[in-house]
């Protein structure tokens, strides 16, 4: 699976993150690695830097990892997580400026086709609702 860009879905809600991952898997099957994480360290609505780091590492691919986030704090916490993974890894991780559910589906279908990280990001960001 590591010959393709992987996807990480970060939402304030664990259910949104999981449900979005289900939708993505329905579209692309097991062609790419997908991780989802949501909720703060106590399980409430929020995001968890440590969990985001783990998710990225769990699906690590030499082709890169595209991260989809929902609102404000999810982005800030994901940026923090990426920074904490170190500059070498950070180079191969992008946060897509795209809606979390729709962007995840778009990114995943592009990634499943074997595209590189930049193309995956672009496809997610091109999504028009």
């Amino acid at each position, binding site marked *: 699976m590591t010959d393709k860009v992987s996807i990480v879905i970060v939402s304030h809600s664990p259910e949104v993150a999981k449900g979005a991952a289900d939708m993505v898997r329905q579209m692309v099957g097991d062609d790419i690695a997908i991780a989802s994480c949501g909720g703060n*360290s106590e399980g*409430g609505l929020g995001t968890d830097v440590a969990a985001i780091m783990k998710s990225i590492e769990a699906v690590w691919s030499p082709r890169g990892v595209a991260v989809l986030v929902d*609102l404000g704090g999810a982005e*800030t*916490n994901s940026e*923090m997580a990426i920074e904490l993974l170190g500059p070498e890894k950070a180079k191969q991780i992008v946060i897509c400026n795209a809606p979390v559910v729709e962007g995840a589906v778009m990114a995943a279908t592009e990634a499943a086709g074997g595209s590189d990280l930049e193309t995956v990001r672009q496809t997610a960001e091109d999504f028009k609702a």
Partner: protein
Amino acid sequence: MTSDVLNARLIDLIGDRIEAHADELTELDQAIGDGDHGDNMRRGFRAVSAERDALANMTFGEALKKAGMTLVMKVGGASGPLYGSAFMAMGKSTEAMPESRAQAAQLLEAGIEAVKARGKSDVGAKTMLDVLVPVLKSIEAGADIADVRKAADEAVEATKPMLATKGRAAFLGERSVGHIDPGARSSALIVHAVCDALEEK
């Protein structure tokens, strides 16, 4: 007061303030955010308090870095990486507790720069920066402790008429006007706790 005593004392004073005002922070966040700022700050600073003994045995700089990382990992909202990065940057900027006004200003400035970078923001966006920057200015201008407290409180009030352009409150557009920013308030609480510690010294 020795460094280890002050580390511990600062942790207690900040933790107590946050604990005492958590509901207020949450109420402020309910008006223009998602109503979790009090819970977030309490979660973060309780985790810092849980490491109190370890932190007390570190240099001031090391303790700040460690506490910052704990905030990053525990807060769960945007304020986690923001305060966390600020603490970490302050810890990196100095090993020892600041001894002069200039050193104190330098320390705070390092924290402010980290918040700006992490939040891609600046003063005027109705955030914690709208307290931290005026506080820095008052320190640089030679304010005494009472003046610093006043600067912080006035800065909190001054966020009321602001239009939020960063963070969740920005979703509200015009409707963010007329409310105090929760992060501005929590910054003022931390400033007051530091002032308490300095007065005890």
